[in-house]
């Protein structure tokens, strides 16, 4: 089993447990066990050995016993391994012959698990009264139809999920691949530096199945105590370069390498696997959530140190001191799902720091930190640097990092386009500062017109916490409004009331003359289009056009093709109608999400953090699209904490704090900037 297979199975079991739990809402003594569909899917995706399959079955059995109110929990410990084995066997026999082999394997796996479960339950009953065969037969006869039904449902679920799941796994193996483009071969760098702890010489890497290299001709040398900043647009190859520096490409990925790379003067290939490399190098990834394996922050830190064989006293002092330095000592017992994005990033950093590596690589791992936290981490990096640590930081914005940096490298199309000291690089790149919006001030809102949205004394509580406190305002047709405020100020909670996802506890919300307190969500969504922060939370279809069609068909409109074409043209995806949505770039997916609500032709479009995860170029494009839609008569409401785009584009700024509106101003960009 590869290391990646372990989380694949674990995560699918978690999803199975959730789906299983939801199905418990349907009352009945024996509820269908949907966990089976998910461990079968995992087995089909991973194709483990028979011995491993048994192990997976046992873990699945424990999970089933824990989450399902099974009539006979120990039965699962026997029935799930049997089901897992049958699924694997069937799939191995059929996979090259039938397209629906995942469905069939899951169907038979479920059948095997179900009958085994019944059989084991029978065995437990048998010693009671010898003459009870009739009862057993009747018991079996009652359960078997349920088992067959469950098997059918599981088969369909596994078949439906198989293709998107294998696509998702396929995609992450090549996900970072850079678009091909001209890239000058870098030269003139003193790469034969005897003192370098980390060194690359004409290094290129091509992912398996890709034609063009994702990083090419990289020369770099980093001495002890130096800090290297890497920046550049999305898909420039930054993450791949980080993976190279962490030894992952040499030891875990299957692609092809040319050129050399050395750690402490020794070729990466000479190290004994990623385990040995990571005694010297610690890497913090951009997705902090995926670096948290355990159910509490403390265990997360402890487990890594225990693996290194440290004694308990050392572990304890190290945990305490690192948590303090990272400012997370109050999070010690918290489970990861209760942490904010920024907190997760600090925990992921702390876990890596606790291992005390000589070289630290941070790959966009500060993206969700607020100003104060970011400052704290940067000053911590400064301290680490002066204690002799070598650090590589990848970040979109490098301004505040320049104080600690020795070298800056700018990447594009997989190669290095600029390099030097922070000052040299700053001089050689034209300032990225966007031109201030030079459009004329919009006319004062036509207050004579009826508002498209009217909010009166809106209150919302989560338990005893007041999320919205007597919020009142109107939005008029054609306005471009930004709702700004810190995390937790109530922005997202507020906009969820506009299309009925949340209903006011008191107060009222009126949308285009409809009472949004009571109007059905399906009605409201054709007037208010809400685009969520991350487009991936909604993409599920096989093509871009189908994705757009989903919403249109839900509103019961006949002319779907016309609307789809129109919406895709507006977001400049007209030529991508047949593409698998998740293969689009991040910026394209964001625009697709807009097209999905646009096709439903709502008067008002709300965007929650529309520029998160986008680089400057893509953000600009997104905002121009919003301006365009405004000119076409839509009302635009944007929830964001990115003051740069607010300053440049919004015509009215509503600022929230602690569930209240603290200011509501029109085109006073100077104030918003402060």
């Amino acid at each position, binding site marked *: *089993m590869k*290391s*990646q297979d*372990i*989380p694949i199975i*674990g*995560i699918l*079991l*978690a*999803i199975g447990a*959730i*789906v299983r739990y939801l199905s418990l809402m349907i009352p009945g*003594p024996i509820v269908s066990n949907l966990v089976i569909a998910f461990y079968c899917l995992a087995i089909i995706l991973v194709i483990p050995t028979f011995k491993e399959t048994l*192990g*997976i079955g*046992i*873990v699945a059995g*424990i999970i089933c016993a*824990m989450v399902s*109110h099974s009539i006979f*929990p*120990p039965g699962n410990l026997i029935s799930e391994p049997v089901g897992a084995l049958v699924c694997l066997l069937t799939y191995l026999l059929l996979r090259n012959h039938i397209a629906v082999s995942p469905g069939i394997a899951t169907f038979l796996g479920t059948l095997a698990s179900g009958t085994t479960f019944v059989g084991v339950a029978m065995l*437990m009953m048998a*010693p009671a*009264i010898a*003459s*009870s065969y009739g009862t057993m037969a009747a018991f079996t006869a*009652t359960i078997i139809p349920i088992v067959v039904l469950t098997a059918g449902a599981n088969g369909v679920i596994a078949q*439906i*999920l198989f293709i*998107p*799941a294998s696509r*998702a796994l396929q995609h*992450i193996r090549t*996900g970072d691949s850079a678009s091909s483009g001209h890239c000058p071969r870098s030269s003139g760098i003193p790469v034969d530096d005897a003192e370098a702890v980390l060194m690359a010489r004409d290094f290129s890497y091509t992912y398996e199945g890709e034609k063009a290299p994702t990083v090419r001709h990289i020369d770099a040398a980093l001495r002890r105590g130096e800090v290297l900043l890497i920046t550049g647009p999305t898909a420039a190859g930054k993450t791949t370069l980080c993976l190279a520096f962490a030894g992952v490409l040499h030891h*875990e990925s299957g692609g092809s390498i040319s050129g050399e790379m050395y750690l402490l003067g020794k070729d990466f290939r000479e190290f004994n696997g*990623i*385990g040995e490399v*990571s005694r010297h190098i610690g*890497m913090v990834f951009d997705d902090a*959530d995926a*670096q*948290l*394996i*355990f*159910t509490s922050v403390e265990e997360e830190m402890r487990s890594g140190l*225990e693996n290194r*064989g440290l004694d308990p006293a050392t572990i304890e002092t190290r945990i305490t001191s690192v948590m303090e330095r990272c400012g997370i000592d109050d999070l010690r017992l918290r*489970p990861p*799902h209760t942490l904010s994005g920024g907190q997760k990033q600090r925990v992921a950093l702390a876990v890596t720091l606790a291992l005390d590596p000589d070289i630290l690589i941070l790959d966009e791992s500060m993206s969700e930190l607020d100003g104060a936290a970011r400052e704290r981490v940067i000053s911590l990096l400064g301290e680490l640097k002066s204690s002799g640590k070598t650090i590589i930081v990848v970040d979109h914005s490098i301004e505040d990092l320049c104080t600690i940096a020795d070298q800056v490298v700018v990447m594009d199309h997989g190669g290095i386009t600029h390099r030097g000291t922070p000052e040299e690089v700053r001089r050689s790149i034209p300032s990225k500062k966007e031109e201030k919006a030079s459009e004329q001030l919009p006319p004062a809102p036509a207050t004579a017109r009826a508002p498209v949205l009217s909010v009166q004394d809106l209150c919302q509580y989560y338990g005893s916490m007041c999320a919205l406190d007597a919020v009142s305002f109107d939005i008029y047709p054609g306005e471009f409004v930004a709702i700004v405020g810190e995390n937790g100020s109530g922005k997202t909670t507020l906009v969820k009331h506009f299309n009925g996802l949340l209903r006011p506890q008191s107060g009222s919300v009126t949308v285009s003359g409809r009472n949004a307190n009571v109007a059905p969500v399906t009605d409201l*969504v054709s007037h208010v289009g809400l685009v*969520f922060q991350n487009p*991936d939370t*909604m*993409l*599920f279809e096989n093509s871009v056009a189908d994705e757009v069609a989903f*919403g249109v068909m*839900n*509103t019961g409109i006949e002319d779907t093709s016309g609307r789809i074409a129109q919406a895709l043209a507006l977001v400049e995806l007209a030529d991508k109608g047949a593409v698998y949505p*998740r293969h689009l770039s991040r910026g394209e997916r964001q625009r697709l999400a807009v097209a999905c609500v646009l096709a439903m032709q709502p008067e008002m479009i709300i965007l929650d953090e529309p520029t998160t995860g986008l680089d400057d170029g893509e953000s600009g494009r997104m905002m121009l699209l919003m301006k365009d839609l405004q000119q076409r008569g839509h009302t635009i409401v944007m929830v964001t904490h990115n003051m740069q785009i607010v300053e440049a584009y919004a015509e009215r700024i509503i600022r929230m704090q602690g569930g209240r509106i603290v200011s509501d101003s029109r085109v006073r960009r100077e104030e918003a900037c402060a």
Partner: protein
Amino acid sequence: MSEIMSYVSAESFLHRMPVLLKIAAIAGVVVASVLTHSVVVLGAMVLLIGVAACGAGLHRDLVRQIPLLLFLGVVLLLLTVLTMQGGETLFHLIPPGIVSSAGAIPVTSGAVDFAAVLSLRFFAMLFVFQLLIMSTRPTELTNALMALRMPIDYVLMFVIALRFIPSLQLEGQRIHEAQLARGYNPGKGILGKIRSLRPLLVPLVSNSLAKTRVLGLTIDMRGYRTRVR
């Protein structure tokens, strides 16, 4: 939210009891309840488990299971009455004079006894498992699995499943809201219901599988699989 994993945070004697001891106790209850045919012994066991639950303050969660168990008991009773006779006839399900003069479908003491044994047996096993799950922190269970020499790969699998259940539930809610914002409404009938899982499950599965590469690398970089135990 937290209901999937039934752990109840509290300080009771059951919470403090070593996990391995609890597992041994479960094994004891399972074996004992299978071996005995006595309604009295089984009843006493269920009662004892109930008392332990009260002592640990976990009785409320067990009480919630009772409607389900009663339903199960009734089904079992019906099954046994319909399929077996033994001992003296207590009464007839269809009173005399309707179908036949003697009455039809006799309810015998043997059938009632057997149904009681089966029901109590399930009660005992279900309760005792529930108590283990409710009184044991998932991490303690993980440690117990390690102590029982489960290979690290499977322990990690288990831990990752536990850790991601609440996170993915939150993610599931976000996905549900995002689809509602596109006018999503669940289909009707069994096939419709299964089909309407697609807009919810496909993003959930795709997004969470996209995390597995970093998770796998994290496992390698922290040296879990190469650890000397």
